[in-house]
């Protein structure tokens, strides 16, 4: 039998050059991005891509050459991912995240946010009231590790709220320590635990609220309530907001898993997951800012008034940024 008559051979001979062309364009695009492509390449690409796709279906039915088939499968997949892949540059995406995606995702999640805030502050309020009633409660929530406990003196407690030493090294160290303090772990945990219908998220939020509330009661009882509030809120507004949002992201995932509605459970989790990811990404950024505020702001600023001003300003800023009504459909 003359191999020149073989169908698969002629088929390949006729199209090989176009495959090679497409391969070249895709390889270049993968290496150096869309900008490396000339205008001719961009024009040729859709045509070459469609030809390769049709070559693939033909090859499947007539060719027994494994190499050709494997080659076409991967070439088509690569071209497909390129043709239908994302093209926005990193900077466009980042701008889009701040301008549109992040605030939209947060404001869309108002309900889980409220629920999450309720868990955290409800826990805090409960512990606060319990502790004011009877300080013994404090020891239920804390063990002796912290020196800021009900047995500490007024002077000692007061001294922990103001800093006198202000060397750069200390500030930076404080910043780094806050960055890795358990806050970011809590935030991420709150998100991950949401997976189990959101119940562990709620437990975690309440637990941390309780911790906060009992801590607050200690200072309150010694008459340091206002001072502690300033000390706490200068970064706490941002940090607590971030934790609430992380919890909200957890509740979103949990809600999607528990109540998928008309969608399939997979589809529902996937849709919500992408939104929740935006919220959690934002929460991580907020924690970063909170760490800056805590590491530098709180150590440098020892005036209660200034602390309150910063706290209120940051609260106002976040609220406006997230919930200010925006025109929809804008890109």
């Amino acid at each position, binding site marked *: *039998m003359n*191999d020149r*008559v*073989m169908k*698969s*051979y002629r088929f390949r*001979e006729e199209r090989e050059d176009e*495959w090679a062309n497409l*391969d070249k364009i895709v390889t270049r*695009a*993968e*290496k150096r991005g869309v900008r490396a492509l000339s205008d001719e390449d961009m024009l040729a690409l859709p045509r070459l891509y469609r030809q390769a*796709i*049709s070559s*693939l*279906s033909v090859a499947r*039915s*007539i*060719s*027994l*050459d*494994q*190499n*050709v088939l494997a*080659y076409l*499968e*991967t*070439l088509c*997949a*690569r071209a*497909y*991912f390129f043709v*239908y*892949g994302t093209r926005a540059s990193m900077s466009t*995406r980042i701008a889009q995240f701040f301008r549109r995606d992040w605030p939209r995702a947060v404001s869309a999640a108002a309900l889980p946010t409220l629920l999450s805030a309720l868990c955290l502050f409800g826990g805090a309020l409960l512990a606060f009231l319990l502790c004011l009633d009877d300080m013994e409660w404090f020891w239920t929530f*804390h*063990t002796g*590790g912290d020196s800021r406990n009900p047995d500490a003196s007024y002077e000692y407690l007061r001294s922990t709220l103001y800093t006198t030493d202000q060397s*750069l*090294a200390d500030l930076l*160290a404080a*910043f*780094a320590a806050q*960055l*890795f303090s358990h806050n970011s*772990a809590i935030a*991420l*945990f709150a998100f*991950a635990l949401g997976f189990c219908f959101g119940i*562990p998220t709620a437990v975690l939020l309440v*637990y941390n609220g309780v911790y906060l509330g009992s801590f607050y009661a200690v200072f309150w009882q010694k008459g340091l309530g206002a001072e502690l509030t300033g000390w706490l809120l200068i970064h706490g507004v941002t940090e607590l907001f971030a934790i609430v949002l992380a919890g909200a992201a957890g509740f979103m995932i949990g809600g999607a898993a528990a109540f998928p509605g008309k969608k399939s459970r*997979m589809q529902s989790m*996937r849709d919500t997951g*992408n*939104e*929740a*990811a935006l919220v*959690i*990404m934002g929460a*991580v950024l907020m924690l970063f800012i909170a760490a800056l505020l805590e590491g530098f702001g709180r150590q440098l600023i020892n005036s209660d008034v200034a602390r309150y001003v910063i706290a209120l300003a940051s609260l106002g800023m976040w609220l406006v940024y997230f919930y200010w009504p925006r025109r929809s459909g804008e890109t």
Partner: protein
Amino acid sequence: MAKRKPKDQAAAETRREALRRRDIRLREEVRQSKRIRPLITPEGAALNLKIATASERAGAFLLDFALLFMAVMMSVWLISLAFSEFGFRGWQIAGSISAVVVFVLRVFYFIFFEVGRKAATPGKRALGLRVAARGGGRLTANAVLARNFMRELEVFLPLTLLIMTAEDAVSNWIRLMAFCWTGVFVLFPLFNRDKLRVGDLIAGTIVIHAPKVKLQKDITSVSPLPAAKGFAFTTAELDAYGIHELHVLEDVLRQSTKEIKARVAERIRAKIGREKAPEESDLAFLEAYYGALRGRLEQRMLFGERKADKFDTGR
């Protein structure tokens, strides 16, 4: 029963062995075909995407983890070098800066590479893997973020939990609970069809195996086939084998040593009942037989007969 001749018995033995191997092969084929996820492109053509196995994914992750670890070591070393070189004394500052650098590296290593053009980290690239959107849509930056924030919990949190010391009894319990919980995350890919991580589930992504393949020369295009004209095969000779054997022969021709080629040529000759001519080259024989067999099988395929392998009698 009459006593069978030993030769017959040996032949039966060989045949049974061959059938057993075929069985194993077919099962392996079925297993492999389960990895295929057809994706219908907007043009209406089907792309067969192959999902990555759990072991491939684990391998890619370990590679990435090693790279990340080296990057962390490198940056810490550079920072400390800079501080000692320029006579800075603030080792505390150096410590804080490296902590921040490590944090940024850890969080953005995977995101940076997966948002990139190849949608794959260096480890994935090395193993021919890439991230794709499930169902064939666009892979968005949000999806990449989602899958990698979950990684924070699937991998880095259990690690932190291991290192962290407990502060009190309550945290100890939480730690234990968290540890069991993260165990669920780590083992999750083993228990679903698509080998999805929890991150993939949330993000709607899938990791596929699509290594780059080079287009090689068509074996039948070696022109003129060395002494190929000397060979003419009868239909009976060509019907001895099927598609599977053709593919094995292709592999032999493309990548095996001379000795193996000689052995294969010998077996084919024995099977089709041909004697080796005095000046005949094994390579030429194999190429000629490959060309003829492929032609024959393709021709039969045109008539809708796929002869899967030598055992396939077309029924």
